[in-house]
């Protein structure tokens, strides 16, 4: 199973995603350059976290025009699994591959902390190994992580069961206090995701709850369901 991690100018979690896939999960992984026009046979594409183009203007705004994004869009259109982590999530929203947008955190400041997220859907490639309602302890690190979509879009996402993670308490309750950044409906990930699972793949780093996302996609793809 070949993972590709896209490197945009300013990406800074590219090595972390690579490390998680290659050294923790033990799967083949390669970097793709933002100017590449082909995915070079990747089975899974990761758009890593960080500050593409410094997040100047808006997070993800410039990176979404990178040449590689055309190939990523085409891959996604054919049902290829694409994991957008943090800045990658923002890029996918800017590119219109996901609905909604990520705006400045409600607290205005950047937030780096471990939070709890509840798994809402398990019939996605990245959550297949989870159980519904399972609570994952994952780091967040973002200044613009507040999920926004217009009411009709939000209703459609909920109706289509496209919300896969919500910020929750450790016990799995969806409360305003547990909402890390003011996201509408506590949304932490729509079919693709906000926190940093790649930083939570080893117990020594505080949590290995993120591993399940990568294991899910592995399981899904090796079972040929992709």
């Amino acid at each position, binding site marked *: 199973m070949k993972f590709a991690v896209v490197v945009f100018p300013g990406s800074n979690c590219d090595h972390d995603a690579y490390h998680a896939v290659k050294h923790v999960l033990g799967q083949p992984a390669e970097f793709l350059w933002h100017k590449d026009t082909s995915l070079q046979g990747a089975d899974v594409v990761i758009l890593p976290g960080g500050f593409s183009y410094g997040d100047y203007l808006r997070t993800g*705004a*410039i990176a979404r025009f990178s040449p590689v994004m055309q190939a990523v869009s085409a891959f996604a259109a054919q049902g290829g699994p694409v994991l957008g982590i943090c800045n990658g999530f923002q890029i996918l929203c800017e590119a219109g591959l996901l609905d909604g*947008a990520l*705006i*400045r955190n409600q607290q*205005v400041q950047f937030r780096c902390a471990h939070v709890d997220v509840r798994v809402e859907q398990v019939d996605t490639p990245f959550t297949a190994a989870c159980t519904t309602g399972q609570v994952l302890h994952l780091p967040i690190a973002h200044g613009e992580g507040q999920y926004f979509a217009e*009411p009709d879009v939000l209703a459609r996402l909920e109706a289509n069961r496209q919300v896969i993670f919500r910020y929750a308490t450790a016990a799995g309750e969806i409360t305003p206090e547990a909402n890390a950044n*003011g996201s509408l409906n506590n949304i932490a990930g729509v079919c693709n995701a906000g926190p940093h699972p790649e930083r939570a793949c080893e117990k020594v780093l505080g949590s290995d709850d993120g591993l399940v996302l990568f294991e899910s996609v592995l399981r899904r793809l090796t079972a040929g369901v992709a």
Partner: protein
Amino acid sequence: MPLFTVRVFVTLKPSVFDPQGRTIVESLHSLGYAGVAHVRQGKYFEVQVEAADASAAEALVRDVSGTLLANPVIESFRLESPAPVA
């Protein structure tokens, strides 16, 4: 080709909550500026373009604004008419 400056204002749509604006109002209140009722923060760009004439300049900047400067999911934008650069 002549140079024009076009000013672009990007604002969050009314349906989008503006945490920065709210924080500013709160700080102003705590500083004693009770008369400030509401603040919305947006972005402002001065874009200089080379174009055949003012209307071409405006068209170009409108295109650039819609493509890159504003995200239509959350923002809207407005241009001022192009001013020739002396």
